[in-house]
Structure formats: structure tokens, C-alpha cells
């Protein structure tokens, strides 16, 4: 089978869509008060560094995904089970995204539709695209990047034009705010959404010009960080700290307040569209990562065959994992605090250090 190749533009689009994903719609960094936008900016350098670690590792081991070089670096006995950990985590994270989208849809509009149907429809689309392969996924991402930009532009334009933005809600920043911002930036925002990029390591080997992956990736992360920062700053400035923190989906609430000339109002559909697009790509990338790691560990030749099983697992775990949304958020907190940092940051950094040490002392075979 021909090796699938993607271009730098496509990687760029995938990273941005993945980063914006759910992070643009759900509230992040709740501890940081009104300085949430600041904590996103503070977390950005950390995210870039983390990406550079991923980038460096896949440059050192061309053609290998994370499970591949984990085994190379730590040896088969440690590396294999460690890599195995990634599969359920990727799938669980994908299912969490699906859950969030489904819950917003149900809360916002489809209150009488079973969550199973809503999620199943999304998963069908994910399975279809995974079945078509990475190239098709990457091309679709490029096209939807333009769509997201247009949506984002329209949304921010109407919010600003409606005169809802009040900078009083963002400033001033006192010393305490900086401390809080920093505390919520590390590790929370650093891991979600920046650290989650660990699954892009399964895509990096497919890049046509792998030497450009560093530049492209960093560019994409910085841009998405700035976009996130601006979006959350707008949300915060419109809603104020209190409502922002109580809202399940602040962006949705923000857009419902728009009333331009008594005619342009209730643009909620745009936000829902943004969320669906974001979640769709994020989830697809998670599923792809899970498939890639599985295929690598269990030596599956035709990765496309795994699309359906992974999709089904993600679908069911999306609504079995938590009985209601508050529980889901609680789980998310635990997951974000104890599990994700290990897989997204600790293991890759460990790999990086071990690799450097072995290289320095010539221990590489």
C-alpha cells in the first residue's frame, strides 16, 4: 500500500483545527478569573516547547510514530506496554469531545433527541473519513480551516459590532491575577489544549517535508494560541467573570446576546457549527492516533479496517463514561490533572531526555 503523504499546509490546518477544537467553546482555565486570556498566552510558550519535543523525537526517528520510538528508546519490554497506554487515552479523549458536542447540541437545540443518535451521526462521519485515509482527512481539514476562519470572523464581527465588548471585564490585572493566571496555565491549559497535541506525533511521519514540521507546527500553535486568547477574551469581556464561569458553553451564551439592527440575532447556529467542526476534527485526529498506535503495536497492515471498531468504542464510551454533564466535567478534571500530563508531557519529555543521554554516551544501537 502506498504511503500516505501530507503537506505542510495540511499539517498546519490540522493542528489549528485540533487546538481550537473544543477549547474555543468550553470554558478553560477557570481558576484564573477574568485573566483567562492571559493564562492562555502564558501557556503558549510551554505548548510550543512541548511540540518541539515531539518534533525532535520524530525527526530523530523518521517514519516512526510515538509507539515506535518509545520501543526504540526504552526497549521493547518497557516501551510496548507504555505505548499501549496511549490507545485507551486517545479513544477516551475522543469520546469526551464527542460527549461535549452532543451535550451542547442537546442543551441548545435537540432536547428531545437521544444522545445516542446525535453522537452516532457524528461517529458515522468520523468513520467515513477515517476509512478514506489520512490524506483525505488532511485535505478536508484544509477546506474546513477556511470555513472556521470565516465563521470566526463573522462571530467576532457581529459581537464587536453589536457593542457588547466591554474591556472593563478584562482589566486591570493585579498581581494576584497574574499568579492565578499562571497557576491555571500550568499545567491545565498547558495540557488542554496544547499538550493534547501528542497525538499529532502519529501524523508527523507522513509529512512530505519533515524538516519543515517544526516551523509549521510552531506557527500553527502560536496562531491557534492567539486565536484562543482573543476568543476567550471576547467571551470574557462580553459575559463578565461570573456568567463566563457559570456557563457550560460561554461562546454560545455570548452569541445569543447579539442583536444587530433587530434583525441579526440568534446566531447560535454559527457557534454550534464551529463546535461541531472543531469536535469533528479533534475527534477524528484522536481516533486516527488510536488507530495508528494500535496498528503499530499489533502489526495491523490495513489501518482502515480499524476505523469502524475504534469509532464504535468511542461512540459507546462517549455516553457510558458519565451519567450526566456535571459528572463528565468532574471526570474531566481528574483526567486532566492526573492522567493527561503523564502521557502528554512526562513520557515524551522522558523519552527526549533518555534519547539525548543515550546519544551522548553512544548507547544507541
Amino acid at each position, binding site marked *: 500500500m502506498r504511503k500516505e503523504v501530507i503537506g505542510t499546509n495540511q499539517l498546519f490546518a490540522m493542528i489549528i483545527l485540533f487546538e481550537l477544537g473544543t477549547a474555543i467553546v468550553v470554558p478553560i482555565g477557570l481558576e484564573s478569573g477574568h485573566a483567562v486570556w492571559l493564562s492562555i498566552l502564558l501557556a503558549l510558550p510551554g505548548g510550543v516547547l512541548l511540540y518541539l519535543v515531539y518534533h525532535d523525537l520524530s525527526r530523530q526517528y523518521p517514519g516512526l510514530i510515538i509507539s515506535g520510538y518509545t520501543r526504540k528508546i526504552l526497549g521493547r519490554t518497557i516501551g510496548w506496554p507504555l505505548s499501549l497506554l496511549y490507545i485507551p487515552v486517545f479513544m477516551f479523549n475522543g469520546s469526551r469531545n464527542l460527549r461535549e458536542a452532543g451535550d451542547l447540541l442537546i*442543551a*441548545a*437545540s*435537540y*432536547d*428531545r*433527541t*437521544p444522545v445516542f*443518535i446525535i453522537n452516532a451521526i457524528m461517529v*458515522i462521519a468520523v468513520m*467515513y473519513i477515517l476509512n478514506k485515509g489520512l490524506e483525505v482527512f488532511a485535505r478536508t481539514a484544509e477546506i474546513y480551516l477556511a470555513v472556521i476562519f470565516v465563521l470566526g470572523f463573522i462571530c467576532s464581527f457581529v459581537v464587536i459590532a453589536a457593542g457588547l465588548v466591554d474591556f*472593563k471585564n478584562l482589566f*486591570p490585572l*493585579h498581581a*494576584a491575577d497574574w499568579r492565578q493566571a499562571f497557576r491555571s496555565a500550568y499545567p491545565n491549559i498547558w495540557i488542554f489544549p496544547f499538550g493534547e497535541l501528542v497525538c499529532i506525533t502519529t501524523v508527523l511521519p507522513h509529512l512530505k517535508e519533515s524538516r519543515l514540521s517544526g516551523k509549521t507546527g510552531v506557527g500553527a500553535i502560536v496562531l491557534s494560541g492567539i486565536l484562543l486568547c482573543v476568543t476567550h477574551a471576547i467571551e470574557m469581556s462580553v459575559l*463578565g467573570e*461570573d*456568567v463566563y464561569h*457559570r456557563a457550560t458553553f460561554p461562546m454560545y*451564551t455570548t452569541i*445569543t*446576546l447579539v*442583536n444587530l439592527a433587530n434583525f441579526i*440575532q*440568534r446566531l447560535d447556529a454559527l457557534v454550534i457549527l464551529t463546535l461541531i467542526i472543531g469536535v469533528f476534527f479533534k475527534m477524528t485526529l484522536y481516533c486516527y492516533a488510536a488507530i495508528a498506535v494500535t496498528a503499530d503495536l499489533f502489526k495491523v497492515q490495513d489501518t482502515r479496517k480499524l476505523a469502524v471498531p475504534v469509532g464504535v468504542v468511542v461512540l459507546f464510551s462517549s455516553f457510558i463514561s458519565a451519567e450526566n454533564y456535571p459528572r463528565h466535567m468532574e471526570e474531566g478534571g481528574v483526567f486532566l490533572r492526573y492522567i493527561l500530563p503523564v502521557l502528554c508531557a512526562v513520557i515524551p519529555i522522558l523519552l527526549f531526555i533518555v534519547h539525548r543521554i543515550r546519544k551522548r554516551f553512544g548507547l544507541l544501537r
Partner: protein
Amino acid sequence: MKGKRLLLTVFCMLAVMLLTSCWNSRELNEMAIVTGMGIDKAPDKDEYRVTFQIVNPSSTATSMGASTGQPTITVYSATDRTLFGALRKTSKKAARQLFFAHTQLVVIGEDMARSGIDDIFDVFERSHELRLNATVLVSRGDDANSIMKILLPIESLPAMGLVKKVRNTAAIWGENRDITIFELINGITGEGEVVISGIRVIGDKEEGKKKANLEQTEVKAIPAISGLGVFKKGKLVTWLEGSEAKGVLWVQNKIDQTTVNIDTEGSEASVAVDINYSKTAINVELREGVPVFHVHIQEEGKISETRGFMDLSNGDEIAKLEEQLAKQTKEAAIRSIQAAQRLESDIFDFGNELKRLRPKEWEAVKEDWSSLFAQGKLDVRVEAHIRGTGMRLKPYLQNKDESN
């Protein structure tokens, strides 16, 4: 092989579609569009009485079929412990399911307002149908129910007509303002208090319900926006009128356009100035434990009318008028702040401002802010500019001193 799979997928999708009903699908003619809601206290019970104003689509002006002769709206009401319960209970009376996404107006009865409104807005936040940007009014001296029933001339949908009234007067007269549920919630959760515009029916309420009432040039009952209700701890305490109300909006930086009649040497309130730009900056600081409120108003306007002779081609004259305008604005602002201080109700969000700018100092005073607010010192500065005199400089009236 590939085609087979595709066909299978399409078949499955179709099967799913046919086998399942369309859960959220609702036809337009199966629902009743609610444009306005009135919330009252039920008599003798701790319950809400909620009144819904529902559009009667077949008799709105846009309908092209034969008009049924019914009024454009119809009103239902229901009583329940929760608002949502009342919404649903209405189904006993209404043939169609109520649809709330287009509710533009919420009127709160005065009794309800006096007994506290803090707890009624949760359903508006939680529900995806109800809008947070619906306008809120308090029915003055009356219950919300009777406001909801009155038909308006020109505007076929009374709720939308009332919203337009508030917006209209807020935009050009400036004694009231269009307050939305969202702002109220922010006010309730913040450190200050809220104000809500009042509405009062002038004339015969019973006549106002009839369609026949509209078939004359002067209707027998007309709702008019009246006064600004000041709340304290979520309860309506008093109404501010006239220049006090205007002063409140001035300090709150909500004046869009307004008119001030300023005094001249000779006569009282004889020059009308049309204010078309106004901006207010506030700042709060604590001096020796007592708050000082700095209010800085910048306003610009043009002269629209003068009742006597005045040499408006003379820059010095204009400067005098500017001074007078600033003085009157300042008086209005001070009067309104003092009125609020008497009520110990921080409707200007000075508390929020202190908290935002000086969080540490706020921590120390937040416990007894209301009384500190009442003792607060005022520092009001007004910069007034008159930018034009309209199409004429001097008026056609002769200067009496010269002609004699």
C-alpha cells in the same frame, strides 16, 4: 465492493431516518409564538402567575389569506410555584405548544417587584429557548397581566411595540433605558443594585383589551414608559422620575441622546440643547475608609431652540451656555447619586468598580458597603461642549435691549 458498502451505508441511514420519528421537529403551525411574558405574584399564595402574549398568525398584518377578524394577539395565564411549571401548565388552555425563543419582553408586576425579583431569572439562563436579551419592565401601579392584554395602535404586536417604546425613549429622551435580563443577572450577581424602567397604563384598561379601541384616532388606553424603579437587595424600593432618572443614566454612562433645557440669565429653561454625545467615566477610591466617587462626564450637543434673543454668533455666549449646561448636568448627576445614597442602593455599580480596580481595599469594606456608599463623597466633573447652532446663528427675534 466499495460501492456495495456505500449502498449499505445509504440504506442504513435511510432506514434509521424512516424508523425513528423526528424528535425535535416541530411545525410552525403546531406552535404558539410567545412574544411577551408577564410575571405577577399570585394573590394569597407563594406562586407565580405568568401571563403569555401569543401571536395569532392568521390575523397579523402580513397574512394574505382572509383575515379572521380576531385580534393579533391572545393572552393565556397560569399559576405555579416555578416559572417553568407555569409555562408548561398553560398547555391546559392553549391548543399549541408555546414557543419562547421569540419572547422579547418580560414585564414584572409591581407587587412582584416589591417582594423581590432575584430568584426569577434562572429559567431564562438555563433554557435554550428563552432569550437573555429580552427587555424587562416593571408595571407601575398595576399587575403585569393587565399590561399584557392591552392592544397598541400602529404596532400589531404589543410586546414588540412596548420594546420599541423603551428603546425609542431611551435613545432620544434618556430618562429610561432598555434593560435586558442579561444585564439584570449581571447586576444581581455583581456588587451593585439594579434599576428597571417602569410602564404604566394611561386610560381605561378594560377598553384597551378590545380591538374596537384601535378604531379611533385617540385610543382609550395606552401604556407609557414611566419612571425608573430603583431596587435594593432585589426589591423595588422607589421610583425616580424626570431629571433624577436622567441623572442616573448619565452616571451610568447610558445616555445616548437627550435634550436639556438650560436656563439663561433672563428666563428659566429657555434654550433647548440636544445632547448627541455623552460619555461618563467613573472611578472609586477609599479615603480614610470613606469612598470617594469620581464621576467625569463629557457631553456634546447642539442648540435646537431658543425662546428669546441670544447672540449665538458670539463664541462667548456659547461658552456661557456650555458652562450652564455643565452646571445643570452636574446638578442632575449629583441629585441622582444623592437620591441613591438616601436609599443606600448602589445602582451605579461603584462597588463593582472599586472591586475591579482595588480588590484589596474592597475586601475590607465589602461587608458594610451599602452604608459606606450612603456616606460616600462626590466628585462630579462635567465637560460640556456645544458644537453647533443648527441652520441659523441668531434667532429671528430682535434683541429687545437694542431695539428699544
